């Protein structure tokens, strides 16, 4: 069975259908890119996959559980246990150091473990910046802290919303390299992006338009 199944979901805001009868299956270990113009419903879809929102209609089966039927408490628990989030704006806590920011995710999940948090930073090449505050880090470095935090609890799905939106080319390539590494390790990756370069490297790409899936194709060049 697929890791994630969306069955005919819609998200309706008054007159507006932000998502309109979307069905999608994501396999374990898959690397999926979601693209589409602004307002097409990408973030709305991310919110639902990330268990921060429920669809108005339809079923969302994540790892065998229907999140449309979960309580807020249940959603919180699924978020904590199964989802890793990467944001365009990084969302680091500005008064905590890099390693402490990573430990925040550990704190809500299990127990803060500084050694493990430092290893996660090492994986994204930031071991020597562990004690720096976000304000002392570049955008690319902040994004890598955010990635380390998303990975620390070994989530089943890593969701990234415009992860390279605020980065320059060099940092974008660093992030893409990290994604490749994650994919090779078997992590399921869902990346929302405007950037064709980021979309192109994914294994599979869907394009949303007006809340509907317009294209869904597997990248023939993947892995080359």
């Amino acid at each position, binding site marked *: 069975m697929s890791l994630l199944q969306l069955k005919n979901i819609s998200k309706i805001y008054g007159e507006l259908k932000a998502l309109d009868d979307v069905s999608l299956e994501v396999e374990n270990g898959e690397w999926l890119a979601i693209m589409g113009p602004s307002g097409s419903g990408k*973030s709305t879809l*991310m*919110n639902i996959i*990330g268990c*921060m*929102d429920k669809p108005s209609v339809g079923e969302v089966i994540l790892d065998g559980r229907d999140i449309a039927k979960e309580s807020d*408490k249940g959603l*919180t*628990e699924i*978020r*904590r*246990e199964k989802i890793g*989030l990467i*944001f*365009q*704006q990084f*969302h680091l*806590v500005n008064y905590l150091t890099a390693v402490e920011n990573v430990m*925040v*995710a550990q704190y*809500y*999940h299990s127990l803060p473990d500084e050694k493990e948090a430092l290893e996660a930073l090492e994986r994204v090449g930031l071991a020597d910046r562990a004690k720096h505050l976000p304000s002392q880090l570049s955008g690319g470095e902040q994004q890598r802290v955010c990635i380390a*935090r998303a990975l620390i609890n070994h989530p089943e799905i890593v969701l990234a*919303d*415009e992860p390279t939106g605020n980065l320059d080319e060099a940092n974008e390539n660093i992030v893409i390299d990290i994604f490749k590494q994650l994919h090779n390790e078997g992590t399921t990756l869902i990346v929302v992006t405007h950037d064709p370069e980021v979309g192109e490297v994914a294994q599979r790409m869907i394009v949303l338009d007006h809340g509907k899936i317009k294209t869904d194709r597997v990248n023939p060049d993947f892995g080359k």
Partner: protein
Amino acid sequence: MVVALLAISVGAAILSGLVTIYYDVPRQMGAQFRNYGANMILVSSGTDTEFDLDAVQDAVSLISGDELVGVTPYRYETVKIHDQPVVAAGTDMNGARTTSPYWHIEGEWPAEGQALVGKTEAEHLGLKVGSTFNVTYSGEGDEEVTDDFGTDMTVSGILETGGSEEDYIYISLDELEEIAGDGSLDIAEVSVSAVKESLNDYADRINNADLGVSARLVKRVTSSESSVLTKLQALVLIVTIVVLVLTMICVATTMTAVVTERRREIGLRKALGASDGSIIGEFMGEGVMLGIIGGILGAVLGFVFAQFISMNVFSSSISFRPLLLPVTVIVSVAVTGLACLSPVRSAIDVDPALVLKGE
């Protein structure tokens, strides 16, 4: 945060300060009021028991030692000075000093062989400080003088009170006995530093003890005392409540601002899987910390504040009440906790999805 801490400290300071004063005022005011004279009088209850010093002593022993300011027995006899009838009061001069602190004496308090002469009487008899006079006793009515030669005495001081005391001369009980022979006391004035209820209580106890003594309260003094006290304590209570409410508003405002400012962080924590409980714990914990630190700071400040007021208003110091520290801390924690309720509610209402919204 600093503002909230300041608000709590000030609130707690005023709370602990006013409570200290609240409890200290009756004592302080009592001591002040005792300057206006006795608030209880003892008279013979008309039974066979003789109304003498022993009876007075027995009655007074029913009053708690630290509340008893003083007791003064009086025996009045009509004597003759220079053939003029004069009322002589035999009393205990040390007692009179405590029960009648408002007496103004020109000259000295009398020693042996000396007398205090009321101002009116002194003018009438033409006596001055240092004058000597001869006292004789004629018994009841106009009979023959018992002691032909009388007793010579010196005026040690002239008594001014603005009241009927100015019509008398005051000598010691022993000397009155020498002049007029044995006799029972007429009245004893008692000054007790206590509130009206316990005064009533003492009077009842004396009256029920069957000592041949009946106790009465000097209504004028006691009721004005307790009405002033009640009003003062009500005022203190109202001020305290108002200050606590203001503190609460201030803390609530600050915490709301903190929550608003940290909305994004709260959203992030929730997106990372923070439960409502841990968000509540975090902000409540902060509030409780504020309450504890503010409470301790305030309790200390409040004591200084109460001491300052006491020194300035009553010119006496107050003792620190150890119990007030935990009470102040508990009240400030309760006030901050209450103030945090609505900000914490808005913190748990933050939507985790806001982290995916571009800003």
